[in-house]
């Protein structure tokens, strides 16, 4: 990113206007206006079936949708496929497949938008893959096939695949699924580093306690964004309680907010 850090928060990473999506004739995402600033980590939370994944996919232009999305100030439609892929990286939820490919091969797929067709990986591609795998502590077993990994190991490789793209904007759906606490902490440190460098991260997290560590929260319910605000804002906490039927108890621990389910 060439954007200076001081200016990063004034740059708009993603701007949606009237973004809506239908699945099987049902509107699962109602028309949504959204502005996500660059240099921030935003978490999308909400009850099951609130439309979180759909919002992420619509923002990434991965499903048919109404409305427009501007990516770093440019209309998504005007970007070429590869240009879009280099600017916005998307990590799906519970991605399966690629059992026969090695960890290294899978991560190298993240470099596809950068590589001329049929060209061998460049030194830059190799470096990006190594950095991503080392960040996820998967470099030591890079030759192992994906099909032989545990769920958590597999998820780390898939995150590395997304990181290897080196995109300034990253959309990640449930990135912490199957990860143990040390690797969850590693992932959060990594996101912090990316955001400090002017990058933008939007993640869907079902664990509200971890989601509250982000800069901003997008609270969704029944296909609508019902609140968008800073994580330490009391209004955000109120919106959270409403979205989850007041079944949360919010606590401040060591200067950070966290949440537990309430019986």
């Amino acid at each position, binding site marked *: 990113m060439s954007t200076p850090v001081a200016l990063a928060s004034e740059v708009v990473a993603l701007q949606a206007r009237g973004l809506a999506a239908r699945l099987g004739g049902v509107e699962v995402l109602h028309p949504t206006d959204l502005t996500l600033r660059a240099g921030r980590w935003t978490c999308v939370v909400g009850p099951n079936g609130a439309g979180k994944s759909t919002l992420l*996919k619509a923002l*990434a232009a*991965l*499903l048919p949708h109404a409305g427009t999305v501007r990516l770093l100030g440019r209309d998504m439609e005007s970007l*070429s*496929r*590869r*240009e*879009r*892929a*280099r600017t*916005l*990286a*998307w990590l*799906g939820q519970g*991605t*399966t*497949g*690629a*059992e*026969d*490919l*090695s960890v290294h*091969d*899978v991560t190298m*797929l*993240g470099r*596809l*938008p950068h590589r001329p067709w*049929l060209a061998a990986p460049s030194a830059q591609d190799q470096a990006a893959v190594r950095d991503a795998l080392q960040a996820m502590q998967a470099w030591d*077993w890079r*030759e*192992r*096939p994906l*099909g*032989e*990994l*545990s*769920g958590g190991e*597999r998820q780390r490789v*898939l995150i590395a*695949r997304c990181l290897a*793209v080196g995109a300034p904007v990253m959309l990640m759906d449930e990135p912490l699924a199957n990860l143990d606490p040390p690797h969850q902490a590693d992932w959060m440190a990594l996101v912090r580093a990316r955001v400090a460098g002017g990058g933008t991260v939007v993640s869907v997290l079902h664990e509200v306690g971890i989601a509250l560590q982000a800069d901003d929260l997008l609270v969704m319910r029944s296909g609508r964004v019902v609140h968008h605000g800073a994580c330490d804002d009391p209004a955000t906490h109120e919106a959270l309680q409403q979205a989850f039927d007041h079944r949360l108890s919010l606590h401040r621990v060591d200067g950070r907010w966290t949440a537990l389910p309430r019986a």
Partner: protein
Amino acid sequence: MTGRSRAPTLQAVRTRTRSTGAVHPALLALALMMLLALLLVLGTLVGSAGLQWPGSAADAVAQRIAFEIRLPRTLGAVLVGALLGLAGAVAQGLFRNPLADPFLLGSASGAALGVALALAMWGVSPLAVQALARLGVTGAAFAGAMLGVLLTLALSRGVQHTLRLLLAGVIVGVVLGASKDLITLARPDVLQGLQGFTLGHTGFIGWGACALMAAVLLPLLVLAWVLGPLLDGLSLGEPTAQSLGLPLAPLRMALVAALALATGTAVAQAGLIAFVGLAAPHLVRAMVRTTHAALTLLSALAGAVLLAAADIAARTVVAPAEWPVGVMTAVLGGGYLLWRMHRGGLRSSGGTA
């Protein structure tokens, strides 16, 4: 179908410790090529009277039988097997499903219908005979196979949805199969001719057919190699592939075209040969874990070895008579898959199994 849910088989343990997989892909390629060369020599020498050395019965007739009949026939089996193996790997990559068969898109039933029609029209009118003489049963089979795939494409309204494509292929298969049955009901005399086709045969393959198949196979091998990285990208699912900027629609179109051409050409020359397209990629995956580019080429080699071996076996088991080679591949290929399943499960390349 991930490794998690499976008891650690010997294979898994070995793969874990050696970390790169049991065999190196290049080593497997070399072994398969050597096996193929051996089978070509064997196929040329083995006749209805057993093994015949060229020197021992050095009369001109034996020489001619070897070079005009047995060699092109064996080479034909190699080429048909390679086409089917390649098509199987492409189909399993396209549909992200280890059970995908190259005949899925309606090419087999289309070809069978084409042959049934051709045989039924034989002698009906001089015009039909004239057209058939030019086209031949081979041409009718190829045209039928292409028609089957085109119908599937029309029914699925293009290649936008892989699942719809799969369903359309199944439906077209059933409808065209029923149409073929109606023809055979009305004209039982075509049944005998048709049976040779549906059981699969390599006996009629000559040098011309070999040249034709080689001309189709070589560009397809290049295409498979070139599309390999894109198939790797597709193996993480269509949304991920799309997010990586891959041109999904043109990619699927190219893969479907390659499938249609490979199966159409193979079926036209050798009839419906079962199991080679399904078993060849599994055979390769059981030994190496590799990228789609290498998997497709290795599957072509494995298919060639399978069919060449089956062809020789079909000629020798009940010599001097012979079995239809399709029966042989069904017995060998089906037996192999059963054994694999018994040994610890089939591996999927995709995750949708």
